[in-house]
Structure formats: C-alpha cells, structure tokens
C-alpha cells in the first residue's frame, strides 16, 4: 500500500517536472497549470502517506530514512506551493519538482518497511526538534533553487546572450530578495531546531552537546548560514550570496545524507 503510494507520487513528481520544464521552454500557460495541478496532487499523496504513518507510529513519522526523505520532499513542495500563491515563480517549480522526485525516489530505494517506534524515544521535544529543523531544511532548499536561478539569470545578463530564457526568468532583484528572505527564515528555523535538539539531548543523554557527527555537521552548516546572514547585512548580495547559499545547501545535504548512510550515531535512522 505504502510503496504503491510512493510510486504514484513519484510518477506525479516526474510529470510535474516535465510540465514545468516544457512550460519554461515554450511559455505555454496550459502547461504551467497542468504542472501545478500535478505537483499539488503529488504533494497531497505524499502528505497522506506521512499522516497515515504518523497515525500508525503515534508520533511524527521520522523513524526511518525513507520517512525523513518523504517528509523532506513534502515540506519542500508544500512551501513552494504556498509561495506560488504569492509570487508566480513558475521557473522555481521546474527545480523544486525534480528535487522532490529525487527525494521520493531515494525514499523508495531505501524503503525499509514500517518499524515500530522504540518506546523510550517518545518525547515532546522530538517533534519540537524535528519539525523546525526539517521545515528549515525545506526552506533552505528552496533558497538553494532560487540561488541557482539567480546564477543562471546573472550569467545570461553578463554574457548578453540573445536567448529568450532571460525573459522567462524573474528579475535579479526579485531573486536576491527572495533568497535573503528564505535564508533568514530557514536559518531561524534551523537555529530553533538545534536549540530544541540540544534540549532533547540533555533530556535523553544528559548532555547538551556530545560531538555527535550530526551535531558537528549541523554546526558547520549553521555557521555558514550565520555568515551568509551576517555578510548580507554588510552588503554581500547578488552572486556571492547566491554562491554561498548553494555551498550551504551542499553542506546541509551532506550532513543529512552522510549521517543517515555512512555514520552510525544517535541521529541515524538506519542505525
């Protein structure tokens, strides 16, 4: 049942990706609507699956790696769909959809069945740690997409090309402002996640900080985003800010994936 849902969501994410990309290439309005509807449906499926599992676990479904991946995808798409209502950033959809597709695909590959949640893990601080951290991740992912588009548009403008792509992309100012806004939001949530996480650690293991690999990676990532927010206030914007956002996302992804796949630590869902 769950795997079927995943496969269906996968197909829809792929369809949405195709829709967004072909809209970007042709500029046809019908394709944009189709892509948005498809993406919304995929999001719905993903959300239903998470809710179903959460009900089964009797807490937020984040025990296994595939749970985390599908939550991640769901939050990214959810944030994008919310954003889409305020800013018509169709081009962002053509990056968000394939990313969601990749996450759900990994969830499918790493599917390890439902596991009973260890009873001693139940704690109010767990959702308080996971929810802001993951929402922060999702927003920072969208910031990463915005930065990619910024660099693309920047390159188009610098090389003075004739391509019509430039006309379909949002203005640099829009992208730069959105980037800063998302980084600030994502960073704030990320910070909250770290704080609640250390409270959780204190409750469970008796220490706020224990140099766990996830904690270490998160700290590095956090420092980078802190630098980004700080330099922004002193006038680092545009291309440098976009590049730094991309580096930040790379760190984020490494910390998220490697911890789950390589390291065995307290955070590891597989371990």
């Amino acid at each position: 049942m769950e795997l079927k849902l995943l496969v269906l969501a996968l197909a829809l994410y792929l369809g949405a990706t195709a829709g967004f990309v072909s809209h970007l290439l042709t500029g046809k309005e019908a394709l944009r609507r189709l892509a948005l509807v498809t993406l919304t449906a995929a999001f719905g499926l993903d959300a239903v699956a998470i809710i179903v599992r959460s009900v089964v676990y009797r807490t937020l479904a984040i025990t296994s790696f595939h749970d985390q991946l599908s939550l991640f995808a769901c939050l990214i798409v959810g944030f994008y769909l919310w954003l889409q209502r305020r800013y018509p950033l169709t081009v962002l959809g053509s990056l968000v959809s394939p990313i969601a597709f990749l996450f759900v695909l990994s969830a499918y590959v790493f599917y390890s069945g439902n596991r009973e949640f260890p009873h001693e893990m139940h704690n109010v601080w767990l959702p308080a740690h996971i929810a802001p951290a993951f929402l922060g991740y999702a927003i920072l992912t969208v910031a990463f997409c915005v930065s990619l588009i910024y660099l693309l548009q920047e390159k188009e403008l610098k090389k003075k090309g004739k391509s019509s792509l430039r006309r379909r992309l949002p203005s640099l100012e829009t992208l730069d402002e959105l980037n800063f806004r998302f980084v600030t939001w994502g960073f704030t949530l990320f910070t909250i996640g770290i704080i609640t996480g250390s409270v959780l650690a204190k409750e469970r293991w008796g220490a706020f900080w224990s140099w766990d690999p996830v904690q270490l990676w998160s700290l590095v990532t956090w420092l980078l985003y802190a630098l980004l927010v700080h330099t922004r206030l002193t006038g680092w914007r545009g291309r440098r800010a976009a590049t730094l956002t991309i580096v930040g996302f790379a760190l984020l992804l490494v910390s998220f994936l490697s911890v789950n796949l390589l390291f065995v630590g307290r955070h590891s869902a597989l371990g």
Partner: protein
Amino acid sequence: MTPDIVIVGVNHRTAPVEVRERLALADGRLDDAHRRLLGFEPVKETVLVCTCNRVEVVAYADDVAAATDCITHFLAEEHGMPREQFESHLYRYCGRTAVQHLFRVAASLDSMVIGEPQILGQLKEFYARAATVGAVRTVLHRCFHKSFSVAKRVRTETGIASKAVSVSSAAVELARNIFDRLEDKTAMLIGAGEMSELAARHLLSGGIGSMIVTNRTFDRAVELAREFRGTPVPYEHFPRYLPLADVVIGSTAAPHHVLLPPLVHDALRERKQRPMFLIDLSVPRAFDPAINEIDNVYLYDIDDLADLSEENLAERQREAGKAELIIEAEVDKFWRWLNGLDAVPTIVALRERVENIRCHELEKTLGALKDLTPRQREALDALTSAIVKKILHSPIMHLKRQDAEVESFYVDAVRRLFDLEDFDEKEDQ
C-alpha cells in the same frame, strides 16, 4: 553666378565635442545670428541648425565660394575663435551634395545612432526659427519641407527607425530583468545625446522613480532635468552622485572613458552591492568595458542592445541602403525643381493653375445651365478665357522682365500668392 545651396558645418564625425560645443549657438542669439548671416552680400536665405551632434549653416547664396567664406567668418566672429582652430573640422557642401546632406540629416542617416527620431523634430524647430525672422524664402522653404517629407518616407518605408526604438526598449526590458520594480529606482543621465534622451524617455514611461542629469554644459543639464522632472548635477560632481544611481545612461562625446572600474567599485561599496545597470550609448565608448567584469554591475553598450533586438546587422544595412536610394531619388526630384526655378516654369505653372480654376468653374456653371445653345456656351468659354488672360497679362509681363534681382522676387511672390508650391507637390504625387 548662379545661386546655389551651401552647407558649412561640423558634426560628431568631423569635430570633437570640445570644438562642437564652442561652435554651438546659444538659443538667445539665434535670431540675431540669422539676421547677421543675411547681412552678408551673397547670402539670400539661411537656416542655422545646432544640436549636440552638429552645428550647421544652411544657406542659399549667389556665390558659393564667397558664401562659404562669409559663413566661416561669421562662425569665427560669433565665437571669438580664430578660424584656424576649427577650419580643419568644417565640411562644406554645395549643390546636389548639400541637398543630399540635408536630406540624410533629416532622415537620421547622419546621426550618431542611425534612425534616432529626434533629429527631425530639431530640424523643424530650427527651420521655424529661421522662418520667423524671415531668413527663409522659396528655395530653403522648399528644400527643408522636402527634407521633412523625405524623412517621413524613409521612416515609414524602411526599418531604419526600428534600431533606435529597439535599443531603448531593449534597455528598459533589461532593466526589468535586473530590477523587480523601477518605481523606487534612480536613473542618471551622463551627457545628453539624441539617443540617451530617447532611452531616458523610455525609462520614464517604464516608471523609473527619479532622474539625475549631468552634462558638461550645466545649462543643458538644467534644461534636460526640467524636461525629465529630474535633478541637474554639475558635471565635476557626478561621481559623488553615482552611488544613488541604479541605472546609468552614458552618452558623452568624450574621446576617453568617463567611467572607470575604480569609480564603479567605490559606488558599489557605498550602495552595499545593490546592482547597477550601465547603458553606454556613446560612440566611442564612455564607460570602460572592463566594468562589466565587476560583480553586480551589468554594462551594455549600444551595439549589445542593438544585437538584442530582432533585426540582425545585415538586415539593418539593407534598410540603410534602401533609405539611401529613397534619398537619392528625392534629391533628383528636388534638383530638377530647383534648376527650373526661373521665370518660365513659374509662368507655365501660373497659367496652368489659373486655367485649371477656369475650366473647373466653367464646367460647374455649364452643368447647371443645361438649356444653353452651343453658341452661348462658346461665348461663355471665350469670356472667361479673356478675363483670365487680361488678369494674368500684367503679372506675366513682370515675371518676364530680364532683371535677375527683380525676377527672383516676383517668382517667389507669385509662387506664394498662387500656392504654386502646393501645386507642384500635388503634381509630384
């Protein structure tokens, strides 16, 4: 000596901006200048044209060599400048070449940016100024009006104008690719040229918030600032205002770069790296191309902008070729008219004109009086013919008098009184 059309002047190709600026005539001195030029013996008619890219004296004169000399003398005296200082920059056209030059100027083929639309309006203004002080009579009246209609023809029949417009709209489009909104942005205009004014106008209608104008001659900056509801800034101080500008349009005629990378670096630091869009419409370039290497700065020159528009270079060249052909044909027509500007064609035209009126009226009357006998009809025809002949007899005798001075006066008068110009125009079409 047969009278001929003469043009003496400098433009953006023959003279550096310093010389052009020194030769420019202040608006207030224009009427007096026309009168003084008319005071020279050989000069019969004259129009002064003075824009940022050109200073030209168009004249209809008896003795071409003498008139050229008089005009050069006038320019030297007017500006208190020894002839040697500017004579090497002057061009002198006469006859057909002069007519062709005027037509090319009007059609914007001689402009810095080929096809820019403002020159025609400027030409009309200067022509009107000359006309109000009575410096224009038959020949230049005809010549300038012809140049206006030629310009119109070139504009409608060729794609020459699209370049200038497309450059400006490409600039606005790019501004929208860089900035989310233009309402809270400031544009700075460095130097005033036909093209930069057009670009500024496009930006204004695109919604740009405010405008700073600077120019080597401060008066001109003030004038432009009034037009664009902007702020004039002395040229020496423009680097201080640079950090305020989101869009900078450069249109100077300086032989060197007025904007260098360090200046832009400083401005960006002060702007906290907010992006700047620099548009260089000058030939040669006013902004150092290395500026485009700087982060958050986008420098486009006029060729970049032109390349962005749909037409490619080959197409534009073909359009320019088409325009030259139109001008060539129109110069021919005008030349034929000018050479026929003696008494005989005027007498013929006058007779035709009056005969046309007579025939037309006669037909109307005969149409209403259907019961007339053929004899009565003949009588009416003879009567009207006789009246016309009698009335025309004396004017035609005056026209036929072989006195050059008087002849041209009467030719001019008759052509005006009987609207023979318009008559010719209609014949042309």
